[in-house]
């Protein structure tokens, strides 16, 4: 074994690392080394349980692996804090009252937001198993149950946070603007709250993967034409196509996919011939988000998400889109406070504390999920 010969040439992943070292060490300072090593090391998965499968068996099998449902753990954190809070302030015994320590120093509107969000979180039907901090076990491949449906979907558990933040309520019509390969789409359907779901992705080849995913996890009647529509259009058109239509819109944009870019050569956005495309990403992201903001009805909500750490692709895009939506389309939106997520999910994920808007899950070796940025916007007008 000659170590000299195992050194790679300058591959795309190396270029990505150089780029991240420069930008993220400025953005994250002392935190960057811990994030860096996590990105370069095998990520953790979550097993999103298929509510349409024979759930009881699946739950038993996953529990036998010593994995735990992180959502129900968060739910017990919420109820614990709620009861504590009710004891503290026993004169106002409102059940949905959010504990003070979750809400922090906030105004009334923000308190109500947090209260509502936490109470729907408490009722979420999503179930996703993860291994606890420091446990590096893996889940076995998902198998088909007695109905021929796959038992669980393996995905970055942090990908569920944008879906949970979207807070889909019974009877909502939902648009998933960039849906393929379909992890979040599947989670949206698992809430069993979507009256109607439009799933779109520009790429036809990726859309066919989305088809396959839904086919393997969702019974036919649940994805009938009047319930689920799959399209392959340019998401930027939606603001014109279906303006002010949806109750909820998920805008999970293409990004530098930081983890992927460091580990895979194939399809790498840091390839020299894709430099232009990479530099245009923030623009594309902004256009997609503006389109999503126009497609949601006033009073409805949009969640913007990426799997990148980049401020340029996260906070800056959100701020720019808010401006553009107002100036170009008269659409007024307001970022919603999600900081309560930091508290209730802190056992499972590591959050970055200093985002100007939105929340960011940063990878950590003991909890190697993310990166996942998500920001919720309420359309006012």
């Amino acid at each position: 074994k000659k170590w000299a010969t195992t050194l790679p040439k300058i591959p795309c992943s190396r270029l990505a690392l150089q780029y991240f070292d420069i930008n993220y060490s400025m953005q994250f300072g002392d935190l960057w080394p811990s994030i860096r090593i996590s990105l370069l090391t095998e990520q953790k998965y979550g097993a999103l349980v298929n509510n349409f499968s024979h759930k009881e068996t699946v739950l038993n099998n996953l529990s036998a692996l010593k994995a735990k449902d992180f959502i129900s753990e968060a739910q017990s954190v919420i109820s614990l804090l709620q009861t504590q809070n009710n004891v503290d302030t026993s004169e106002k015994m409102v059940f949905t009252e959010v504990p003070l320590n979750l809400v922090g120093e906030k105004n009334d509107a923000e308190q109500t937001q947090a209260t509502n969000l936490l109470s729907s979180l408490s009722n979420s039907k999503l179930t996703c198993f993860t291994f606890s901090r420091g446990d590096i076990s893996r889940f076995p491949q998902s198998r088909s149950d007695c109905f021929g449906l796959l038992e669980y979907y393996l995905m970055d558990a942090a990908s569920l946070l944008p879906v949970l933040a979207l807070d889909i309520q019974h009877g909502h019509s939902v648009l998933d603007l960039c849906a393929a390969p379909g992890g979040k789409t599947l989670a949206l359907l698992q809430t069993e709250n979507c009256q109607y779901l439009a799933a779109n992705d520009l790429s036809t080849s990726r859309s066919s993967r989305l088809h396959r995913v839904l086919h393997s996890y969702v019974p036919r009647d649940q994805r009938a034409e009047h319930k689920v529509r799959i399209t392959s259009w340019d998401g930027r058109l939606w603001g014109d196509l279906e303006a002010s239509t949806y109750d909820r819109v998920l805008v999970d944009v293409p990004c530098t996919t930081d983890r992927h870019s460091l580990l895979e050569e194939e399809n790498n956005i840091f390839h020299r011939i894709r430099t232009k495309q990479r530099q245009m990403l923030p623009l594309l992201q902004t256009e997609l988000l503006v389109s999503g903001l126009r497609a949601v009805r006033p009073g409805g909500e949009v969640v913007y998400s990426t799997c990148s750490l980049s401020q340029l692709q996260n906070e800056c895009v959100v701020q720019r889109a808010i401006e553009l939506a107002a100036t170009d389309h008269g659409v007024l939106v307001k970022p919603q406070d999600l900081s309560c997520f930091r508290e209730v999910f802190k056992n499972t994920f590591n959050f970055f504390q200093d985002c100007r808007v939105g929340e960011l899950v940063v990878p950590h070796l003991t909890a190697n999920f993310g990166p996942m940025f998500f920001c919720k916007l309420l359309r006012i007008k």
Partner: protein
Amino acid sequence: MVSLFLRRCFMPSSILGSRHLSLSGLPVAAQELLDVGFNEEQAERILALKPRGGDPRHIVSCTKELLLIGLTPQATLKMLEESKELRKTTVKELRDRADNLRSLGLGEGSLQRSLTRCPALLSLPRSYVLAAAKCLRQQCRFTAQQVCDILRFSPEALTYDPGYLEEAFQYVYFRMGANHKDIITCGLFQTSLDEVRVRHQFLERLGRFLPPDKKGVSPTSNPKLKEVMALSDSDFLARVARVSPEELHTFRKIFAREELEAGENKDSETGM
């Protein structure tokens, strides 16, 4: 005061029997050890080392040979107590092996220090030590003087399998950009290569240890090899890696699995 042990030797049932009694009444073996500078307690402990039913003369001759090599009574006792192999070695072998080490350049003083630290140098066949030295010279391109320095700083190195030495050397030389001089003093041969690789790759992925440039020179911003290899986990974390123990702990597990799976892949590629 004559101890219980020595007194037991007077009893008719003693395995030593009366022919081993010296004029002074002590057993010959014990007396000899006292004569060459051991105290009673030490002599007792040495004689207790002889294999059951074995000839006490052997352990006494071994002991004397070690003293001739220049080791102190304390060091001799400690080495004999710690190394079963050493107790089985013949006097001639001991002498040849010490001569061999001298011929590799170990001078008086150094020889004794290295032997105290690594008694295995005397219990391993001469050919092992020579093979290790040859590998250090030829495969790893250390000079004769440097091999001698290795014998002084990390005598263990000469007891290792040449294949391992070469692999360890190549790893730090090529992957970590180390030079010959640093390798001798950094403690590479006192740590296992696996552990070196865990720490190095931990630092590398943290971005705290950059790979060598095209000429093989390591950036000066890198931590010293010694800081990578010789510190305790807690010092290493606090001073060099500057992250939490949980992260190192988790990384060890992940790295072990990566290694295991890399090995499995290689096996399946070559059809083994």
